[in-house]
């Protein structure tokens, strides 16, 4: 739904994965991540199996590998942290390419890197196959506190409005000869931020007024009920269940 409204992570498509009800996908990804995290780090082959599983989901969802890999870049800061670990960790040390590295740290880095990447990859897949709006419906269906879902939904609706307001304020500033050159101008920027806050706050009050006028009494009416059939649940949960089998194998073999 929502042509054009799609966030940048979303990729329009008509694959079986796209068609799954959002709450089944959310549950699947959540369980998958839990399973991945609870796998022993020594079972390296298990992580390869997980990656393979995700790749097959991506294939089924018609998500091109390049698109997927590019979205993974969000993980870079964590990778940097993981790469630091072997240098700073304590304990037994080993020589790699002439550098003295901590064995403990190497395992830690691998652990963070493998589990993190798999988690991010699964989330990126979820985002690529599920529209933001549907995600909210899914969260609502999974009984997330309604207040949180409402806040998230207003963020989606008013993000653009507030950004636009910010842009207009910037243009107004610059039209009157303002240039942010250094620390001296921070005061002006801070005041703009304050003004933006107050404007948004007042808009919030007006929106609330409009909601109350149309019968809002504290909870959002359910307009689109997300429902899933047994088959859809089974299909969605194939991913975490297969992963669970791999995980159990990993525990028994290591």
């Amino acid at each position, binding site marked *: 739904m*929502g042509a054009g409204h799609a966030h940048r992570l979303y990729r329009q498509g008509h694959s079986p994965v796209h068609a799954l009800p959002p709450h089944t996908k959310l549950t699947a990804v959540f369980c998958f991540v839990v399973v991945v995290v609870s796998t022993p780090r020594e079972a390296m082959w298990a992580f390869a199996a997980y990656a393979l599983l995700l790749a097959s989901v991506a294939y089924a969802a018609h998500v091109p590998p390049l698109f997927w890999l590019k979205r993974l870049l969000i993980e870079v800061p964590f990778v940097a942290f993981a790469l630091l670990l072997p240098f700073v960790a304590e304990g037994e040390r080993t020589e790699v390419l002439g550098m003295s590295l901590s064995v403990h740290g190497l395992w830690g880095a691998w652990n963070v890197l493998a589990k993190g990447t798999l988690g991010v990859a699964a989330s990126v897949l979820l985002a690529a196959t599920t529209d933001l709006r549907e995600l909210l419906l899914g969260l609502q269906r999974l009984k997330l506190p309604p207040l949180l879902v409402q806040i998230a*939904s207003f963020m989606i609706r*008013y993000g653009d409005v507030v950004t636009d307001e910010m842009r207009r304020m910037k243009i107004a500033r610059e039209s009157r000869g303002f240039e942010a050159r250094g620390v001296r101008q921070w005061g002006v920027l801070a005041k703009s931020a304050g003004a933006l806050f107050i404007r948004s706050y007042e*808009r919030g009050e007006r*929106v609330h007024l409009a909601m109350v006028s149309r*019968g809002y009494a504290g909870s959002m*009416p*359910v*307009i689109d009920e997300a429902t899933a059939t047994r088959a859809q649940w089974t299909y969605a949960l194939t991913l975490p269940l297969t992963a669970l089998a791999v995980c159990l194998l990993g525990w028994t073999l290591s």
Partner: protein
Amino acid sequence: MDPVVTAAPPASASLEVTGLAYAYPDGHQALFGVDLRIDRGERVALLGPNGAGKTTLVLHLNGILTAGAGTVTVAGLPVGKRHMAEIRRKVGIVFQDPDDQLFMPTVREDVAFGPAAAGMRGPELEARVRKALGQVGMAEYADRPPHHLSFGQRRRVAVATVLAMEPEILVLDEPSSNLDPASRRELADILRSLDVTVLMVTHDLPYALELCPRALVLSEGVIAADGPTGELLADEDLMASHRLELPFGFDPKSVRGGEVVESSVAGGCCAVHGER
């Protein structure tokens, strides 16, 4: 949805306000005893300069503000805590900024909000949404997010969100503000096609003349004049004493339309008024 609406006597007023007075908590008194009555099916303009108390009056109509003194009755139902949900369904307010009015992620969900809040579900809800969007000519935009529409389209959707509740009376706050002449005319066509009581708050006087046979002037918290729109606009003394000014070159006497509801409307002038 409920039998109360149909049970009201046919000659009853859509809206009746008697002796309404209100002071804001900071002590500023905005209304000093407002009396007005609007019959079912009428289209009435509420005119007045900035700060006359127009918005304050509007917020009383569906009980957002509650009267310090006086009463407001909607289709025979007193506005008060007891019937609040019913009142809010009967009084449809279209606020000035459609970005405030349209708060849901898609047009369809926004239009569905009012009836869904009243407990409507399923195909009935879907039909109601489709009908309301059809009335304002926005049916094909149902799945679009509101912020991707033009301002005129958003204003029309805002009207639809209220129509979906099938209100007794439609209250529009500055409906023509910020609209280009074409959108302005489209909105006028839509409003004229609706079979519903309309109270239009505005200081766009030609627009009031075009759409509303009758007008009220609210000034300094009281109804200062009540009569046929054309006559009020032609009364220069009245206009001047209440800070109401016609756009340059506009002569209300040259326009026929205020008196006769069904007359074709002359669109000579099109200065767009609006705050913000």
